[in-house]
């Protein structure tokens, strides 16, 4: 393996220039996917461009009611922001299910997203949250929904020279909650067989006014199951609504049989976890049982 060039620019423009100059160059977040893939010989980029020197790319800030998370923010650092944890516990938990503490001390949600694994843990939670990302590139910046970044396993919609600068989590009402659960054979250090993110808004009576359910590892990319959300809206999350939601989730699954799980098991787990995830999100939103 010829050793790649290592760059650590200190501006967003510097990153764009380096990425544009070498189409094989890759942004480096925590490197917990990138370095592993380089060492195994699966990829051989000509250069890696470290994002962590750019101060503005690390950390969580508020813009009004919107949370902005820099692309180079470590997963464990999300837990240090109490406001973020209170508003988006599902997103913070999803990012903090990745690997082990050591892995999470390096890993970023942007790397998780741009690695484009169908099983990436933080992605269903971000999609359920309705998060967007700001993408910088040679033509300036644009804002894209998180679910529009991955296009197939290992591939993103980012154009040459583009990279993710930050995530934006929208403002939300007082009675809102999110959650993320995954199915893995062990208790940690494992890859999701199925992952489910749920995000709910309730009104004062406990009626669901908005719901987003997103699935990981059951299709080539994350799936936002609009029918599942629709099955909950206007209900008080009674058993009938939950069953309809589970049915929509199961119908939206298009998993494969592989060493990590069978089609039948993945579908069954998507339903089980969707129900549990919605119940946790509802509890967080303050629903009365």
């Amino acid at each position, binding site marked *: *393996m010829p050793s790649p060039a290592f760059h650590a620019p200190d501006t967003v423009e510097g990153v764009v220039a380096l990425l544009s100059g070498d189409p094989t160059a890759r942004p480096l977040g925590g490197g917990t996917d990138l370095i592993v893939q380089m060492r195994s010989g699966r990829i051989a980029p000509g250069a890696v461009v470290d994002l962590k020197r750019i101060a503005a790319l690390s950390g969580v800030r508020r813009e009004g009611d919107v949370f902005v998370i820099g692309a180079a923010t470590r997963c464990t650092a999300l837990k240090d922001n109490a406001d973020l944890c209170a508003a988006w516990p599902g997103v913070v938990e999803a990012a903090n299910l990745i690997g082990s503490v050591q892995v999470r001390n390096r890993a970023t949600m942007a790397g998780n997203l741009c690695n484009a694994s169908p099983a990436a843990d933080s992605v269903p939670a971000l999609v359920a949250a309705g998060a967007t990302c700001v993408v910088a590139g040679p033509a300036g910046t644009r804002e894209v929904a998180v679910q529009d970044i991955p296009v197939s396993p290992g591939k993103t919609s980012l154009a040459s020279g583009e990279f993710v600068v930050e995530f934006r989590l929208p403002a939300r009402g007082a009675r809102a909650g999110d959650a993320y659960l995954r*199915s893995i*054979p*062990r*208790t*940690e*250090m*494992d*890859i999701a*067989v199925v992952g489910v993110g749920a995000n709910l808004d309730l009104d004062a009576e406990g009626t669901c006014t908005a719901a987003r359910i997103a699935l990981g590892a059951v299709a080539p990319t994350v799936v936002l199951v609009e029918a599942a959300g629709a099955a909950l809206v206007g209900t008080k999350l009674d058993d009938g609504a939950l069953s309809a939601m589970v049915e929509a989730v199961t119908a939206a699954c298009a998993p494969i049989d592989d*060493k*990590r*799980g*069978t089609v*039948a*098991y993945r579908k*069954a*787990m998507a339903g*089980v976890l969707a129900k549990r995830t919605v119940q946790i999100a509802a509890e967080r939103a303050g629903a009365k049982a």
Partner: protein
Amino acid sequence: MNAPEKIETFRHIGTRPVRPDGVDKVTGKALYGTDFKAPGMLWGAILRSPHPHARILSIDTRAAEKLAGVKAVATGKDLPTLESLVMHVGEGASDIVDISHNCLAFDKVLYEGHPVAAVAAITPELAREAAALISVEYEVLPHVLGLEEALADDAPLIREPAKGGTGETPSNVAMDVTMGRGEVEAALSGAAVVVEGRYTMEPVHQGYIEPHACVASWNGDGQAQIWCSSQGHFMVRSLTASVLAIPQSDIRVTPLEIGGGFGGKTTVYLEPVAMILSRKSGRPVRLGMSREDVFRATGPAPGAIIDVRLGADADGTLVAAEVTFKYHSGAFAANDAGAGVSSAIGHYRIANTRVSGIEVLCNRPAAKAYRAPGAPQVNFAVESAMDELAIRLGMDPLELRMKNAARPGDLQTSGLPWGEIGWMQCLEAAKAHPHWSAPLGPNQGRGIAGGYWGNYGGPSTVNLSVAEDGTFTVATGSPDIGGSRASMAIMAAEVLEVPYEQVRCVVADTSSIGLSFVTGGSRTTFATGMATVEAAREVKRLLCERAARTWQVPAQHVEWRDGHAVCTSGERQGSKMSAAQVAGSSLHSGGPVTATSALSAQGWLPGFGFHICDVEVDQETGHVSIVRYTAVQDVGRAIHADYVEGQIQGGVAQGIGWALNETYIYNKDGKLENPGFLDYRMPVASDMPMIDTVMVEVPNPVHPYGVKGVGEVPIVPPLAAVANAVRAATGKRMRSLPMSPDKVHAALHGEG
């Protein structure tokens, strides 16, 4: 904890001092297999077969040889042609022809990952690049992985039929062992209750953290050095010398620290190849495996198909047992069937028994010993069947086991009587343990299982020498895997009646100490311990003799008391000399004080264990959590209590992994799909409860301190203990391992 009160009182036996190798290990200074580097060393790389079964038509190494920086290339043709010779130096016997062909394929590759060629170059990158430049022309042959498929009449044959024919129909059966007595069929047909079932599992890997690695340096004068980590450097010496057809004394093997072996490091894979590359290049050569190499090409424990029938009278008395199993042998003959047969049902008194097992060749890496090799598989079947029998009889499963438990003097499956075994004491300790009567929560179930392992003794050499200041050095030939340096120091200090820190223990290389068998078969604390005690007693005798000479009194007037030579009668009565005083004047009192004990330890006894496991099953996901686990074991006598408990906990952890998630997954092309820790799912720390251990001490009367081997027994019962707990929690009997969430879910909700 829980150790019974000691009748005898000891200074050091049973205590928990810090291990002498601890600081090096926790500070990262210890030299493991991959850490060693020699001046001028080259880096080796191995080209491995992409096919599970193929004939090698040609190997073209020219492009690799031309690459600048490449210093040697080797293929199977560089190894000498050998006559078949079965050697008993690892855990079980192996034919050196098989070992040679496993190191570098000769005319056929027999599994994906089988080494085909090797190179040595000035950097690791160049070596890998050169290996990729070697082109091999294969004729791909049909392959076979499954036990029943490999036994079918039209199965591809792994082993070429013997030339000229032996009269027997060629097949993939590599070994066939049967033991038993009585009239099994008649007894089963007369039994009040009969349970029967088929139990299955795929191979699992030992999962040691340290991949295999070595450095070899072979000089023009024929003398060579090898530095490697293994379970026995004498095994490395004799196998490497035999494969290369050179004298053993020309090879000096220096043992490095070992990062786990569990039976898997009782053979050679790399050393003969590194030697060839070194001879060709004239430089020391390092070879190491990646984790993928380890999974693809080193010994898994065999998978199995096991059929069990148990018959009992209405009062629960076992009247007959029939166990028939097939184990994977992999590409070459393995050694698990014999131990599997003798480890199946010998823990019960049964008048009519037949246990038979075969090993089946197939296109997988050659099976290797894994902690109680051959026992956990068959125990899973038998102890699951015992659970089923208890349910059918409406009997408490622990009472059923107590009723039928073998006692000293009862016959083993082999027909030999059991010696001083502590099986009944284990059952009694389990019954008295609070875990046995603790309440269970919702979705929880409790399972129990008992098992045993024969253990071993055999050759060990120990040299014990006294420094001028009266401190002691114990040199053994036994690699320290589970804390044996500490245990040897404890036993020597006990004999010499000196502080533990006054005795240091090292593992000496093959040219510095006499022959010692592998650290395997749970033999080291027993056998090497016996040699240590014998050497310490001789040193004590010598110290007394030297003191007598100094005092000019008859030798019988001097005794060793409390770490000193003491004159017990005559004019000098009451005179004392410490080891330092004797050794410090050794120039004048008869020379350096040192003693060697070289023995083949006999009189080893088996170990028995009994486990209680509570699980909680998530009925919706099929996820099994182990919520409480207690392992009771007869340990003979614990020399270093921490390391005995550690062995028990480690064995249980591996057994739980085997039960819940570990398994080899091959695709239809015969390629391994999970050669890494992500998809080969060993348990992680958060999967484990605290494993409570209860040490029952029924001393071995033959050993000076009562030692019985403890390392292997604890992996035997967990498979069935977990399965029986899952049965209790869900009503479903899991007869196929692993009990991964998808399989438990399918059992609970039906497939698809």
